[in-house]
């Protein structure tokens, strides 16, 4: 199972890539494997304010629909338009072309709740 060392993780299987005050978010390789083939994605609107641990996006596979929680509080600054048209990207490249959205986060304290690659590996 691919768990990149340079990313942070959540218990609900999102990965977080921190760059300055922005965080890019997607689902982990483990999550895409469990969810199975993604057939539909709903993403938040650009500019929307989101709260930590609140359902922010929805991923649907032939198995079921899954809520995706924002790991951080802040404002959406980008969403993956390409994945809307080609949801298979989330399975093929979960840490790259299959990212979901980017949040400009407002509370640095929340970063300490994120898991390291090692912690996430333990979890799964």
């Amino acid at each position, binding site marked *: 199972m691919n768990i990149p060392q340079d990313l942070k993780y959540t218990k609900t299987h999102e990965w977080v890539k921190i760059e300055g005050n922005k965080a890019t978010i997607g689902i982990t390789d483990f999550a895409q494997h469990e969810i199975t*083939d993604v*057939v*539909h994605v709903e993403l938040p609107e650009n500019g929307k304010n989101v709260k930590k641990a609140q359902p922010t996006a929805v991923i649907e596979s032939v198995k079921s629909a899954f809520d995706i929680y924002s790991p951080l509080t802040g404002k959406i600054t980008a969403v993956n338009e390409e994945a809307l048209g080609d949801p*298979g990207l989330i399975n093929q490249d979960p840490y790259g072309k299959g990212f979901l959205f980017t949040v400009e986060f407002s509370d640095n304290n929340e970063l300490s709740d994120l898991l390291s690659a090692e912690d996430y590996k333990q979890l799964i």
Partner: protein
Amino acid sequence: MEKLLNELSSECKAAYEINCDMETDVSIPDHLKRKSDLGLPNAAENDLLRHFTNLSRKNYALSTAFYPLGSCTMKYNPLINERIAKFESFNMAHPYQPAETMQGILEIMHGLERDLCEVSGMDAFSLQPAAGAHGEFAGLLIIAAHFKAIKEKRHKIIVPDSAHGTNPASAAFAGYETIPLKSEPDGSIDIEKLKEVLTKDVAAIMLTVPNTLGVFEKEIVEISKVCHENGTLLYYDGANLNALMGFARPGDLGFDVMHINLHKTFSSPHGGGGPGSGPVGVKSFLEQFLPVPRVEKKDEKYVLNYKKSKTIGSVKAFMGNFPVILRAYIYIKALGGDGLKNVSAQAVLNANYMLAKFKDKIAVPAGGRCMHEFVLSPKAANGIRTLDIAKRLLDYGYYAPTVYFPLIVEEAMMIEPTETESKETLDKFIEILNKIIFEEAVNEPQKVKDAPVNTPVARLNEVEAARKPTLKWK
């Protein structure tokens, strides 16, 4: 595979004739007149008849084989229901005819409302909602009307993750924010966790009892007390009422609002989109908000009363899906109170019999006892998943159980045998499921992964169908 009617079509055959020379008084402006051919398929009458007969023979139905679809209560639908539902006095009635000319129909509706009150412990019912989730929606609008009337602002609904999937959707549709509540491994509620989210802005909690893992909520009386002390109402999802009739009544357990799926517990044919019927029931303090018209009895006559100032309004045209209402009434009258109690006893016995046969071999996340249904978490050899097992069951002539629901169970397979199946039917199914998981998955895994092979079409590419659906012929 049966060809589509369009594929059977040929220009030199026709089973219909359209009289284009018909004279009418209506003058249609030239620019609105159809210029092209109607495009209807042409087939010889005999080919047409064979086409539909062949299609009907591919139907899988309760009347052809076992249907252990968890959460859906696919029980035998007594044929006497169908016979009575065909009476002209019922199926030729028109909703616009005056109430005095359909006293019998209104008497049945009034009688069924009273019977549902008796079974559920509620004080009043409206038969109008068209199905379960529609009943939930109506119930939530009633809850909203109640808080508006007492001038309290509450905008949240708590829904445990062991509830039915429609609950959060209904809450969102009714304008509420859904607060998910993580349940315990057997799907039950932890009172302390509930208290953490039970704030003053929570309008109601929606519970399915027994829950989707088939487990009765043991703390229900305490949950009810804690919620009511907070001014929060309790909503009962009646989808699993088949487990409780004659043993426990939601009204007695503290529930304020509920719906009943007549098409499940009270035996009318369902599946494939309906029709269903989801009557919404309330305690007396909420009766004023029920949908209109209400069926009332005045001076020994039944009337339809539309004049209720506090009502949430109509949630469906006319009085609901009457043919389903009628079947439920016949079912209740045929079985009587003792009969209904026996239904639940047998449904629970059948499910426990099956669970007892599986529990030592297959993981059972909710433990070794259940109510009317149970959930397995099969871990077969060679990477065989629940989906593969379900597909392989089709090869043996079974309808597959519900799979991947509830979401809280890994590789879930949810089985509800209902009370109307014999021990022999259950034994045969148990034998086949064991064979697939413990023999075929081990010795012939590819056979299971390639299933089904005995069905009219082989395994469909569900991913491709969802990503790139072909929605029309040509």
